[in-house]
């Protein structure tokens, strides 16, 4: 992977250039970070011409490394105002990597705001922009269907935005096609769909015809792949729990722990949880003949994905994934699985992040604008985002904007981004991640649920502050590495418990690249990614005051444990203590 494709939306040129030396040692998330760090002014307008949108496969993109085909997407975020790196499944990472592309960078901004373009990347890895105004305003699945029509029988991986992205909604995401060509894998968080929309780019079609990448040492690579695959299949979580029930299997256990945020984070238990749990969802889906086990991209051996179908067995939406089922369920007091699926589909159609929108609807309901549990009313409210209703113009920018507009004081956000499906008061380790992550409130950034609740990678008492900062720090660094390698973070469940799984990662990296990767190198890559993100955010104006919980979580006791968040500011401020040293070793101090 030696080339970077630069797509200039201002003059409509597309150029391929070799990866500059300063980027050569980075891949995936670290490369996304490095490009933004070096090229996007931290104070620039996220929806302006200076922002750049980066798509970067990880180190294992284009290979058979198990679960190694995730895509890193990043830009300066219109939601958080900081560096946003969002990670998704789908087929595009493998497709780009196989064409020799380390990154595609969307720059500038179309002169005509009414114009829509599609970037076509052909089987030789060359890109061209096509005017496609007829796609304006089309929903996600319609957009994908039209783009496939343009392409005829050609095998392509698609990247699209929905109408929310075109409108500049701060909750707009970017969708990717899965192996069965459903446009349903998402880089949802942080408003990256609005960045793509601001540039006039409606979609990207990438030829999915390239050959698998060569390895420096093929035999060693195959051996390491086997070792990794075996470790993933043998671990009870990655080998059984996730493939059988999907991510929504978490609903009951997080509810049991008293950390399942209910009706806008006012309770830690949801009375309707059994109607919307992973177990129940599996029963419904199996009874209706839906698919309950597949990978979100080719090469996934865990296979936690599934399709939710209606009573006639017709596809409705992906998953529903745990986060979406919670956000559009318990957080809004909704316990109707078909209602949740309809809302998930609506978010997908419009091109909106399900986590942000569920949290937004929870805040909206708390404001008395809609009754708790009213999923039909919620569907209509979401429609208002594209029809341009007065409330829709507020809702589209997320939970914080909605809370402020309607006078709600319980707003569950950090760095302007809504919290996902774990209340940080009874699960304090995830609170440290929410508070300190460069990404705003984000569970994937450092998934402390592992040791806090799931008994994976040791045990740290979730109700106490002790040990949470160290736990979150270790996980945030490890995630920085996994996201850079293009590995799904769910491999971490096996990696945390089985040293062979961890070894297999650096053995695969060494055999693939011909460079020697060690355990320390892996962690250093994670630290480097986080260091660039952290320094960028500082230059964008973030201070320690932004690494804090919303104040209601320090005082308002959450039932059933009557928990408040008690991790000290000093502990929170220690999480990024490695940044100065890492920056020095990298020879960087501040972004462009």
């Amino acid at each position, binding site marked *: 992977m030696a080339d970077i494709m630069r797509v200039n939306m201002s003059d409509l040129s597309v150029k391929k250039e070799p990866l500059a030396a300063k980027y050569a040692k980075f891949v995936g998330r670290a490369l996304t970070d490095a490009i933004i760090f070096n090229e996007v002014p931290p104070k620039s307008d996220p929806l302006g011409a200076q922002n750049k949108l980066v798509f970067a496969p990880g180190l294992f993109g284009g290979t058979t490394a198990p679960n190694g085909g995730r895509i890193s997407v990043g830009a300066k975020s219109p939601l958080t105002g900081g560096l946003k790196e969002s990670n998704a499944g789908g087929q595009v990472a493998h497709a780009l990597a196989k064409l020799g592309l380390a990154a595609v960078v969307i720059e500038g901004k179309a002169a005509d705001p009414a114009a829509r373009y599609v970037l076509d990347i052909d089987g030789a890895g060359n890109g061209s922009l096509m005017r496609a105004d007829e796609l304006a305003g089309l929903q996600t699945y319609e957009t994908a269907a039209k783009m496939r029509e343009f392409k005829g029988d050609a095998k392509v991986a698609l990247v699209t935005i929905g109408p929310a992205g075109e409108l500049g909604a701060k909750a707009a995401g970017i969708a990717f096609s899965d192996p069965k060509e459903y446009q349903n894998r998402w880089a949802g968080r942080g408003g990256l769909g609005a960045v793509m929309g601001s540039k006039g780019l409606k979609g990207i079609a990438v030829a999915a015809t390239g050959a698998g990448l060569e390895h420096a040492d093929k035999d060693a690579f195959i051996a390491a792949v086997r070792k990794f695959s075996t470790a993933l299949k043998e671990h*009870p*979580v990655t080998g059984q729990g996730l493939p059988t029930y999907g991510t929504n299997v978490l609903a*009951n*256990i997080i509810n049991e*722990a008293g950390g399942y945020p209910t009706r806008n984070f006012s309770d830690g238990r949801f009375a309707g949880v059994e109607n919307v749990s992973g177990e129940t969802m599996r029963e419904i889906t199996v009874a209706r003949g839906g698919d309950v086990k597949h990978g979100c991209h080719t090469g996934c051996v865990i296979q936690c994905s599934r399709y939710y179908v209606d009573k006639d067995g017709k596809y409705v939406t992906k998953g529903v994934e745990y986060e979406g089922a919670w956000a559009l369920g318990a957080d809004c007091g909704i316990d109707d699985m078909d209602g949740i699926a309809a809302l998930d589909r609506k978010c997908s159609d419009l091109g909106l992040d399900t986590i942000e929108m569920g949290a937004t609807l929870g805040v909206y309901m708390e404001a008395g604008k809609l009754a708790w549990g009213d999923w039909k009313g919620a569907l209509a409210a979401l429609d208002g985002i594209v029809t341009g209703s007065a409330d829709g113009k507020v809702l589209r920018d997320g939970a914080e904007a909605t809370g402020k507009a309607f006078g709600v004081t319980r707003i569950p956000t950090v760095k302007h981004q809504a919290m996902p499906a774990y209340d940080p008061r009874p699960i304090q380790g995830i609170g440290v991640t929410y508070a300190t992550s460069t990404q705003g409130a984000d569970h*994937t950034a450092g998934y402390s649920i592992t040791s806090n609740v799931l*008994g994976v990678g040791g045990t740290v008492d979730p109700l106490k502050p002790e040990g949470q900062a160290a736990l979150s720090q270790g996980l945030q660094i490890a995630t920085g590495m996994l996201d850079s390698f293009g590995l799904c*973070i769910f491999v971490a469940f096996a990696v945390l418990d089985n040293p062979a799984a961890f070894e297999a990662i650096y053995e695969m990296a060494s055999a693939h690249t011909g460079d020697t990767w060690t355990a320390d190198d892996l962690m250093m890559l994670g630290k480097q990614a986080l260091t660039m993100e952290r320094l960028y955010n500082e230059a964008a104006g973030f201070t320690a005051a932004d690494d804090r919980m919303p104040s209601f979580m320090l005082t308002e006791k959450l039932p059933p444990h009557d928990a408040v968040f008690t991790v000290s500011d000093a502990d929170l401020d220690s999480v990024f203590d490695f940044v100065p040293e890492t920056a020095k070793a990298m020879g960087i101090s501040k972004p462009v």
Partner: protein
Amino acid sequence: MRIELALFASLEPYLPDSEPGSGRRTRMIDLPDGTTVGEVVARLGLPDQPRVCFIDGRGVKEDATIAGGSRLAIFPPVAGG
């Protein structure tokens, strides 16, 4: 003493055939005073694999003693996110 037992995911088939509890995957069961989590696990014949146990919403080890009136919930290894 009487407690509420909840078994989730792949453990659900091990629910005893006793009085239903508050939820779909729960039963009321009678146990001698001082019973530990591990003794319940053995009594139910749960598979020999790791599990995550809660008494009244707090994570516990298998040597924890259960008090009458409490709720014991047991999960196989699960995750997501």
